[in-house]
């Protein structure tokens, strides 16, 4: 039997780091749900090309951010709940599936909140309903994501 990680430790156990880290904060975490936030840095290099004179955050990065704010920390949290620390640390969650729909755009400087609700957690695989919103509640992207823990 493991232990429940607090939000601060959870942040240190999300493996993605700069320049590919798209989570600032875990706002809430429990076994069925996680809420995470990220502010898109206006200085990010990809805005120069996407698109010149009209910066829009690429959808693929929004999906990555949804995973880093949701599926990844929830899988870490559930692994540490179930397993002893040494065993939980052996696993890294990799993306397996995404089925999402975009309904808005994210500009440089926007802060997004991602809400992730577990559909199932089985054999180290987490599948979840995910919704990303702007701070004013506008839905940007929603759908399902899944990831599976593999030995590092």
């Amino acid at each position, binding site marked *: 039997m493991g232990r429940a990680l607090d939000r601060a430790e959870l942040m240190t156990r999300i493996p993605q780091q700069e320049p590919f880290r798209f989570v600032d904060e875990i706002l809430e975490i429990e076994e069925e749900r996680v809420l995470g936030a990220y502010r898109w840095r206006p200085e990010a290099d990809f805005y120069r090309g996407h698109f010149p004179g009209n910066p829009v955050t690429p959808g693929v990065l929004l999906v990555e951010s949804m995973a880093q704010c949701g599926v990844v920390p929830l899988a870490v949290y559930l692994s540490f709940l179930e397993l002893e620390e040494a065993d939980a640390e052996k696993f890294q969650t990799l993306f*397996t*599936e995404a089925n999402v729909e975009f309904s808005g755009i994210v500009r440089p400087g926007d802060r997004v909140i991602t809400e992730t609700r577990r559909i*199932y957690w*089985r*054999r180290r*695989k987490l*599948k979840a309903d995910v919704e990303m919103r702007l701070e004013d509640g506008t839905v940007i992207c929603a759908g399902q994501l*899944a990831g*599976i823990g593999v030995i590092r």
Partner: protein
Amino acid sequence: MEASEIQEQVVKILTPYVKDQQALAKVSLETNILEDLKVNSARLVDVVLAFEDAFDIEIADDDVDEVNTVGDCVRLISEKV
């Protein structure tokens, strides 16, 4: 429930995840799910959950480790229905 009936259901549940349609066309009890049908291993969890729902059974994670072929699925399910 007849084994043939279970097999038919198993194949129906596997079908959306199958990448090799030719292998699916000549599916048998010996057909290997990952190697022949080219089902993504991460999808096995979805397949097992669908078996549980369809047959109203529970499948232990340890049992899943021994499932390789369509026949393995039919045997496992037959023991539980």
